[in-house]
């Protein structure tokens, strides 16, 4: 019981967010981490277990593999355990839930290591996966990560077509909700907030946080709600890396070169 309570507490960094829409959150329990480490392909300390938040009993989920094939995910209450990755590249976790007059969807992408699938991740992001979909344009590159204080672009599509002038909200753990509006191409850009607290020096000393993008669109009587959740890390330049000192060091290096120039010029004059 104590373990379950602790699991639930650690599980979702965005617990209670999403305004009623379903969304994925990593489940930080030991089982998820043990499975991930047995599977290989996950990053150090990552979990293979995810919770679908705000879900009702009628939700179902599947995984789209890097080669664009699909694999069903089985819920155990509200959690799913990812299968051992059979190839390297981006995986998309897709969940869908239905109500009488509403469709809910949740997306999450994972970059897992393994033998490359030889299919471009652009095909995975371009593949229509839900009616209303927030699409990273592009995803962060393999071996990279979403970082605080940096801007990222996304597209909003409804039934495969850009959805213009639509509000999309960004929620993180410690920053008030921010609202963005899609432009004439259905695109919008967000800047991830620097809202990490109790920061330790060193990237590996700080766990990533989660950001949640959510949107909704009404088509006649039917309401569509969609979310995208992804982890993001702190930006070392906000903490233990100084860019002004860096620029200063470049300037000193440049001056060193100029001193060398003066010496060689003098040497040339003196023969």
């Amino acid at each position: 019981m104590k373990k379950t309570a602790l699991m639930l507490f650690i599980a979702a960094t965005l617990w209670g967010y999403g305004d009623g829409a379903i969304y994925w959150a990593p489940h930080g329990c030991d089982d998820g981490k043990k499975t991930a480490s047995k599977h290989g392909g996950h990053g150090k300390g990552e979990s293979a277990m995810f919770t679908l938040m705000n879900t009702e009993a009628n939700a179902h989920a599947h995984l789209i593999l890097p080669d664009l094939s699909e694999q069903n995910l089985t819920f155990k209450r509200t959690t799913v355990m990812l299968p051992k990755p059979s190839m390297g590249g981006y995986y998309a976790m897709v969940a869908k839930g239905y109500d009488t007059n509403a469709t809910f969807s949740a997306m999450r992408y994972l970059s897992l290591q393994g033998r490359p699938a030889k299919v471009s991740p652009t095909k995975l992001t371009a593949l229509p996966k839900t009616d209303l979909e927030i699409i990273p344009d592009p995803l962060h590159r393999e071996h990279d990560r979403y970082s605080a204080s940096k801007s990222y672009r996304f597209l909003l599509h409804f039934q495969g077509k850009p959805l213009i002038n639509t509000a999309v909200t960004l929620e993180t753990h410690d920053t008030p909700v921010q609202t963005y509006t899609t432009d004439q191409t259905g695109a919008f850009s967000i800047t991830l907030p620097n809202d990490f607290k109790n920061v330790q020096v060193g990237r590996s000393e700080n766990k990533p946080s989660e950001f949640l993008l959510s949107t909704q669109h009404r088509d006649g009587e039917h309401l569509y709600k969609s979310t995208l959740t992804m982890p993001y890390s702190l930006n070392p330049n906000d903490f233990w890396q100084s860019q002004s000192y860096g620029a200063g060091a470049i300037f000193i290096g440049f001056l060193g070169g100029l001193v060398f120039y003066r010496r060689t010029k003098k040497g040339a004059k003196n023969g």
Partner: protein
Amino acid sequence: MDKLLTVTLLRRIVQLTAFVFFVYGAMIFTTFYTGDKLTQNLPALSCAYDMKGGDFCALIPLQHQMDHRVSTLFTQNAGMMEALMGTLITIGTVAVLILILNKAFCGWLCPLGFFQDVFTMIGTKLGLTQLGSLSRETVNKIRPIKWFIFPVLVLILPLLTGIGFLGHEWGNPYCSICPSRIMTTAMTGDMNQIYISQANTGYFILSLIADLLFGLMIALALFVRQPFCRICPILPMQTLFKKIGLLRLVKNGNSHCDTCSSCVKACPMDIYEIQNQAENKNITHSDCTLCGRCVEFCPHDGVMSFKYGPIILLSSSKEGFKKRTKIDKWWKG
């Protein structure tokens, strides 16, 4: 137009095109994701930290493989194939690329090489006194540095990190000091790679070296040709396969070579060995970037030539020499 048509002009056009592709390629072609890159093992300093780049150099996968894969031979008793497969693929790809273009990756395609060339052109136009050739003694002192950087920073330190002897900061120490990381990212408007890290002593030292080196390289490039290329670890890596390269510099010297030294003066890497007597011999030196300037500036018919397999692509000539020196005088004012 024919008056200006030289190997150097052709090289500048190729360099500029390569620069645009390697620094901004992902904005033009579908090469954003690692899996979409052209080779991921380029024998030239095109940086993986550049999120808009078209391809990246072989040194980053080599360091990662040493850190994460080869080290498992010692830490997890991994099988040879599992531990070495990635490294073998990288080395194999580099070998194939060297077979095709040999060391021309440096002289014709490297973005950092072109960046330095541009600063040398700026220095010339600003009227800064150009250093010309470095002395033989200076060249001999500088040359061993790259033979230290390649095995130590690219292979040994990452391997020791993977085994657990060193901290994470030594996992890719060459990338941490590489000026191409700062240059290519800055050229795309991303200034995140300019920093001094205070995470620990190792990170601090590496970030300080990187920034000082970058500033020094820019200043030196204003009056010294190819300052960073002289210590670049890509050269030793290329040298491992230069014998199989189809493109090569061939010399069929004559008695004038002993006194002329036009080729050495033209060489941006100050390779004194190219003035030595040679009879129809491949003289592609470890430091050579196959830029072709020695062929352009050789005043003797057929002495220096660029060969691709058995085919002569370019050969030195009196006419070519006259034309090239005239353009050089015009350029230098």
